[in-house]
């Protein structure tokens, strides 16, 4: 596992950003400046995957393994696994002309803008970089696997055969390469132009323009534009997405929005419950302070039998 090189170091740029965000948070008097970077879609990286162009050459999957030091770097992966962050799935479909054809679908983490796994993680091991990539930090992980249960795309993989140090594996959009000013390894390797890396907003505009300027070629839908509140990975296709194994019943809002609504009510639950219980206790114990005092004096007079008084 490339645990060590996946650890992101705090660069000077990050430091300035954190400092700026903190200051802005204080100035704005915002209750939770921590959330600010997670949901803003502006200025984040993304990838547009044009499924009509993919030939299934697997260059992306192999480049991914090499770049991330994953084991068996020369074996083409056939599923997401603890040693494969991405793979290309071959699907038999019937096209609009009625002919059977193969479509190749690259699968990997969708890098949700407001990711369920990030919201789920109790130790911030799943972490939103704020620039698009959702990053996993193995040294913080408890191995609770709530990220797996929460992920709407069933992406995170766990080391089920590791007894003491199992980690979660998933694509991290080559965050190390992004910081060095490079493209993700898969996009760099793609020879057909299927994988286009850039700013998410620009890619969205391009995707819609491409659909509009090729009438009848594409399904009029950019998968990832609004699913679960938007994802950094965007797909366009000539075959309806449900036939390519994409989940179809996803909510259009990010799932963490619901749990955050509940979490934001907790201070009131704490305050209300504490107030009601304390009020009740004060009411039921009124006038009994004196008797407690006398109990205590009685106990003190007989120190060897403190348990005779059965009162709790």
């Amino acid at each position: 596992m490339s645990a060590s090189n996946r650890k992101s170091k705090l660069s000077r740029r990050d430091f300035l950003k954190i400092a700026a965000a903190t200051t802005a948070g204080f100035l704005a008097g915002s209750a939770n400046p921590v959330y600010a970077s997670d949901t803003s879609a502006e200025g984040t990286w993304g990838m547009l995957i044009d499924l009509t162009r993919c030939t299934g050459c697997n260059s992306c999957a192999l480049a991914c393994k090499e770049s991330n030091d994953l084991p068996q770097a020369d074996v083409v992966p056939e599923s997401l696994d603890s040693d494969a962050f991405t793979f290309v799935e071959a699907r038999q479909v019937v096209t609009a002309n009625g002919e059977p054809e193969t479509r190749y679908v690259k699968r990997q983490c969708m890098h949700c803008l407001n990711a369920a796994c990030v919201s789920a993680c109790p130790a911030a091991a799943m972490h939103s970089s704020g620039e698009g990539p959702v990053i996993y930090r193995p040294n913080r992980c408890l191995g609770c696997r709530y990220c797996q249960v929460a992920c709407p795309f069933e992406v995170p993989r766990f080391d089920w055969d590791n007894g003491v140090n199992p980690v979660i594996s998933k694509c991290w959009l080559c965050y190390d390469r992004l910081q060095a000013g490079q493209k993700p390894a898969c996009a760099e390797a793609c020879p057909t132009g299927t994988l286009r890396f850039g700013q998410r907003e620009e890619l969205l505009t391009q995707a819609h323009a491409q659909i509009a300027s090729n009438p009848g070629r594409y399904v009029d839908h950019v998968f990832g534009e609004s699913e679960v509140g938007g994802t950094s990975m965007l797909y366009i296709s000539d075959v309806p997405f449900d036939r390519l194994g994409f989940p179809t019943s996803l909510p259009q809002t990010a799932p963490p929005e619901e749990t955050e609504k509940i979490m934001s009510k907790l201070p009131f639950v704490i305050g209300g419950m504490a107030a009601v219980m304390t009020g009740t206790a004060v009411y039921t114990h009124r006038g009994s302070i004196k008797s407690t005092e006398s109990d205590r004096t009685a106990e003190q007079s007989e120190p060897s039998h403190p348990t005779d008084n059965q009162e709790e």
Partner: protein
Amino acid sequence: MELLSPLMWIILALSIGIPAFFILGARYVAYRLAGQPTSVPGPATGAFPVRVPRFTSRWRALRTLLMVMVLGTGTGIILLRFVYGIGAVTNLSDQFAWGLWISFDVMSGVALAAGAFVIAATAHIFRIERFKPLVRPAILTGLLGYFLVVGGLMVDLGKPYNIWRPLIHWQHRSVLWEVGLCVATYTTVLLIEFMPVILERLNKFEGIAKRLPTVPLYRLLKRVSIVFVILGVVLSTLHQSSLGSLWVLMPGKLSPLWYSLYLPVFFWLSAVAVGLAMTIVESTLSSKAFKRGLEIDLLADLAKAASVVLLIYLAARGADILARGAWPLVFEPSLQAASFWAEIGLGVIMPAILFAIAPLRKKPAVLFSGALMVVLFGVVLNRINVGIIGLLPYTGNIYVPSWMEFVVTLTLISVGVIAFGLAAKYLPVFPEEGEHASH
């Protein structure tokens, strides 16, 4: 995994050795305590009934043998899990990452421990003093429940040595972070609430009471106990409900029979109901085991309260299903619908009716079976429905717990039952302490 490798021999030896060490150790401690009656001076001796456990019948010997076998197998499986990984002993997979240990050990374990905060609040905050005799056993049940939850987590977590990290890396958005923080704090609160029971026993040893400040500590804890009772109610309300919120994050995965934005409310209401029911079950069982009298009037009052809570819970669940339009699913011929009916019919409606009728709830057999139905169907099955059965339509039928998962769960329950028995025997948990004890 290789059978008969040196590692397997070591695991086998440890699975026999570790339970044997604890059982023989317990017997040795009991023997030493019984062998030195001089350490318990004066009138206190009579109130300290310690005997070396002897096998008084073939059934008892068989029971002990069975227990040792379960503990030994469980220990072995837990060791295997830490050598070959969670996948080697469970049927869990990337598509089904949470199984029996989360649904039963953690989610049901926390719910079944709810008696501690419900009874403590009844007796101390609402100050209905006749319930005081039930407080200590309820707190003991709660405390052991939480130790089992933590025990289950230590096996289920991939990296249990990182369990402290949520305490450091605060995650306001994470429901699981809040649950973790509350479980850790509340286990500590339960320990503090149970401390007076331990101190009361220690105070009987003059040697200890002279050297250690156990008597002042006992008095201090008694004086501030109400603070911890209130803290217990607040913390319990938070994490009992939040265990339900965990599943709110998964719209589309959990069957609409259970998925609701009000899951936290349902989890809290059912926890209150099962807190009452579990107190009835635990009182009945320990009255049988320790040949104590049964506080039938007290327990019938609890049953009456439980019936009110169950009816509120039923109305809330019904209204929710109608409002979400999920009611047609209830009448579909599916495993989920059957499990839903078992949960609601046997675990909520039936006991609510039984407990609502005064002459019925005064009968010990009805009281016990009604409470057991709330525990097994109303809450344990509910948590399993939410955590396993309700997810199967989405994932496909890919998960049934392995026999090894069952044995580990059984091991943890056994440890809890043994600990309850030991505590009830050697500590003043029950009000009549010593008088009705087995001799």
